[in-house]
C-alpha cells in the first residue's frame, strides 16, 4: 500500500517544485536542490562540455544549463547545510534504472538508493 501511495504523494510534492522525474534515488541535496534528471542528457555528474557561453543548455537553448544552476545554487543558496554544498564535488554513481518510479523516500529509509553494483568504485 505504502509502496503504491508514496510515489504519488512524492510526485505531487516534488513535481511542481523541482520538476521531479521520479528516478527513485534522489540526490537533490547534493546538487544544489536542482534535479539532474531534468538535464536532457540526464547527467548525474555534469555539466557537459556543450554548455553555451551564456550558460544555456546545448540541447535546449532556451533553458539555463541544469548543472550551471546546480553549481550556482550549491554555492549560493541560503540555508543549505555545508556538507550538502560540498557534496556537489562528489561523484554520484550510475542511476539504478530498477528504481525508476519508486518513492525515493522509501528507498532512502531502506538504504536501497545507496546500494551500488559490486564493481562500482569512485576512483
Amino acid at each position: 500500500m505504502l509502496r503504491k501511495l508514496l510515489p504519488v504523494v512524492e510526485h505531487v510534492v516534488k513535481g511542481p517544485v523541482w520538476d521531479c522525474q521520479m528516478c527513485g534515488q534522489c540526490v537533490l541535496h547534493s546538487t544544489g536542490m536542482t534535479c539532474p534528471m531534468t538535464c536532457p542528457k540526464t547527467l548525474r555528474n555534469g555539466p557537459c562540455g556543450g554548455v553555451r557561453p551564456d550558460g544555456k543548455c546545448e540541447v535546449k537553448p532556451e533553458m539555463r544549463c541544469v548543472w550551471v544552476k546546480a553549481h550556482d545554487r550549491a554555492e549560493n543558496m541560503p540555508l543549505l547545510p555545508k556538507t550538502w554544498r560540498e557534496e556537489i564535488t562528489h561523484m554520484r554513481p550510475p542511476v539504478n534504472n530498477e528504481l525508476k518510479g519508486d518513492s525515493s523516500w522509501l528507498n532512502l529509509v531502506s538504504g536501497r538508493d545507496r546500494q551500488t553494483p559490486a564493481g562500482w568504485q569512485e576512483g
Partner: protein
Amino acid sequence: MEDFGGLLADRRRPIVTAEFPSLDGGDLDTVAAALDHYRPYVDAVNITDNPAAHAHASNVSMAIAVKQLGVEPIMQVVCRDKNRLAAQADVVGASMHGVTTFCALTGDDVTAGDEPEARRVFDLDSPQLISVMNGISRGHYLSGRELKHPKELLIGAVENPFAPPPEVRVRRAKMKVDAGARFLQLQIGYEPHALESFMAGVVANGVAERAAILPTVILTKSPGALRFMDGQVPGIHVPAPVIDRIANAEDAAEESYLLVREQVEHALALPGVAGVHITDFRHDDSLRRLVSDLALGPAFAPSAAATA
C-alpha cells in the same frame, strides 16, 4: 612507435595526438591510406565514436584497424549511443585486439547530428564511464563479475575550459582524474585567457601532474570554417575578432595556419601542458609543417632525432 603510455608517464617531450577522420565505407586500404597522413607525425590518433552525433564506421572497428596498422589508437567511447552493457562490451572486445587506450566522453547530443529523432541513451555519464573503464582495467565489470586475463588500460577523458562555469571545469577535471583518467584532451577554443586560468587551476589542484593535459587546435583554411564551428558545433565558441582576423587577411589559408601555430606555441608554454591534440580539416601539408616548424612529435622533436 614510442610507447604512448611511457610518453604520458615521463613526458620526455611534448605529446602529439591527432583526430583520425571518420570513415563511411571502403576497406582496410581506405584506413591505411587515411592513416599515412598522420603516421609519421603523431604519437597516437583519436578514433572517434559517431562524432557530432553522425553515424560512421564504428570506433571499435577503426581502433582495431589502426592498431593493426601500427599506430596507437585512442578509442573514444561516448555515453550518448550505448548503455553500460554495450559500452563495457566494446571496451573489453577492443582490448582483446590490443586496443588499450580509451577516452571517455559525454558526447554531443543527438540533436547536433543528422538523425535528431534518435533515442539518446546516456545510461552512464563520462566520469562514471571512466570509473567503469578503470574497473575493467582492474579485472572486473561494473557488476563485479571477473574478467579473464584483463588488460591494463590507459584511460583518458576530455574537458572544455572554454565552457562555463570556469571554476567548475577545473573541479570536473579533478573528478575525472580521481576516477582514473591519465590524460585529458581539451575542447577547441579561441580564448587564451580561459585556457590560462584553467591550466593555473589544474596545476594548483594537482590534476596536471596526475594527468597529461593536451589542449586541442584545429587546422582550417577559411573564415567560413570558423563561423561554422561557432554556429554549429556544440561547445565551440569562436570570438568575432578571431574570425575577422582570418576574413580580413590577404591569404586566409596562411593566416589560419599562423593562428594555429600561435595557439600551439601559447599552449605549450603554459605550465602543466603536456602536449597538443591536432584536428586537421585542411588535409594538406599543414600538419607536417606545424610539427616541423615547432619541432614536435616523433619526426621532429629534438630528443627523437637524438635517439634515432
